[in-house]
């Protein structure tokens, strides 16, 4: 729980147990794996989305090409944004369940064990 028994204008007091947890190799690994996934993924999906917006604006000829019937490149490009969003959400879910959650659990268990000992 957060502590509220301190000068209300300062952030709550620092709990030293977090320094120990922060120094653990599992935590370093957790942070590395988390950032290693989300930073490149964010750059990728934002670029892909901006590409779509920019091409809608400045590549009208290409976007208006009809692929079959009245379905043109613009519509397919738009629908592909849906596909990539679903795909990335699914990949992240799989990744975090298999790679991140076990490491987070180690840290959380350690925290609970320390607290149970009465720190």
């Amino acid at each position, binding site marked *: *729980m*957060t502590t*509220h028994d301190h000068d*209300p*204008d*300062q*952030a*709550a007091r*620092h*709990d030293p147990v*977090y*320094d120990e*947890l*922060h120094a653990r190799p599992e*935590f370093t690994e*957790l*942070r590395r794996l*988390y950032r290693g*996934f*989300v930073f490149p*993924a*964010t750059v990728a*999906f934002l670029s892909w*989305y*901006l590409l*779509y*917006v920019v091409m*809608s*604006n*400045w590549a*009208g000829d290409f*976007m*208006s090409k009809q692929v*079959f*019937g*009245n*379905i*043109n490149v*613009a*519509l397919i490009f*738009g*629908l592909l*944004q*849906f596909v990539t*969003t*679903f795909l*990335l*959400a*699914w990949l*992240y*879910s799989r990744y*975090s369940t298999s790679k991140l959650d076990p*490491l*987070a*659990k180690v*840290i*959380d268990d*350690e*925290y*609970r064990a320390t607290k149970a000992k009465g720190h």
Partner: protein
Amino acid sequence: MDHQVLTTVLFLAVVALTVGITFWASRQTSGTADFYAGGRSFSGIQNGLAIGGDYMSAASFLGISGAIALSGYDGFLYSIGFLVAWLVALLLVAEMLRNSGRYTMADQLAYRMRQRPVRMAAATSTVVVSIFYLLAQMVGAGALVTLLLDVDSQATKNLVIVAVGALMVFYVTVGGMKGTTWVQIVKAVLLMTGSALIVVLVLAKFDFNLSELLGTAADNSGAGQAFLEPGLKYGATLTSKIDFLSLGIALVLGTAGLPHILIRFYTVPTSRDARKSVLWAIGLIGVFYLFTLVLGFGAAALLDTSTLDAAGNLASPKLAEEVGGGAGSTGGAILLALIAAVAFATILAVVAGLVLTSSASVAHDIYNNVIKKGKATEQEEIRMTRFAAAGIGLVAILLAIPAQNLNIAFLVALAFAIAASANLPAIVYNMFWRRFNTRGATWSIYGGLGSALILVFFSPVVSGKGEDAAGKNLSLLPTSIDISWFPLENPGIISIPLGFLAGYLGTISSREPTAEERYTELEVRALSGAGAEQAITH
């Protein structure tokens, strides 16, 4: 049957259902964790549905399909931006916020910074964003009733706006987060079912051939193939193209800064559930935005769009009437009433979430932590939430009345731009930048908020746009007043970078060792959940 009678009955049924849920929820609510966070006991699926119910607002159901019906492919950008934006929330915000906060957006900043300045800043932007969002919903409610009661009287519309305002204050003050969440879950189910039905009926008219639907829409629109291509609304000049880009950026970065979405992550027991709820929400919202494509182009294909209201906000209900058999038929009357009731439920669920979020922030952040220095009791804080809900409801009502000619999706996009400028920089810096501090947080929030508001105020939205062919004023102020100098309607492309820049400058121009030291704790807690708030069990 007379469709007005049927409509009135269905509207009353929606109201009765939501009021019932609210009373039921109020009996299960005791302290602040219940009132603000539903006891943190909702499952991932429940919260996913509630997020969908909170997010798919009148802007999505009425606004986007109207924008597509009137301006064709350009309207589809809203659907795409509103969906892709969820990846920002999923990857960078949802889980870490769940682990590091309690009730409001400000908690996460106050975790390592000076309480009062950051809570004041975050509460201010929470209230401003929510009010913009709220007035869009109320414009939707006014438009719906005009259609249903066949009266174009300003007094009736205003009365409806006031009635919706009163209802939303009731939901929040009585039902708290539990009531609001269940209202949103029920609404999400109603909205998905109702729009799926219309989508199937529309597609059936074209033998489930999307190309044929698009072709008919293009022919019927009068614009031909250009209706299916980007640029019909935004492609005319360089300014309008930059406006389109600005809108696109605001949409994709706004979601993860919307306070009423952020506090939904506190209603689940763990960060794993927060992740699961975002995944459900993405699935639900994604499917719904695919529906908007059919609804919008369907309206363009089957309706005479020149008879729609200026902003197209009524395209979906009119389309329902058409596929039910047309105006005057029983089937048409039933479907129109049904879809209008769904739209009404949509609006009620969203406004409840918005009022809860903003009044909770006033009570928890400003009243308890800034004024009372954290010493208010839970009962005092909840009582203050109720007062704040009434005040915010009143402001939204007063602002909604002059805004009725604006497209709802467009209005909501302004709320997105403000959220992305004021809130997202602070949230992202706080999670990923150890050096970030109180001055950086306040500068980024006030800088982003102020620049977005100033740019909107001097934009064509407020003044200087003139009249349309039918003589309707396109700006908020009377046509005789023109104070506009900023050419873009959406400020995101300028104000979002300004928010990030202000946060950067504020941070590097000051040092705050406690904030840097406490980052260690924030980081461990955010990533692992060690020490995060637990669900309460009754």
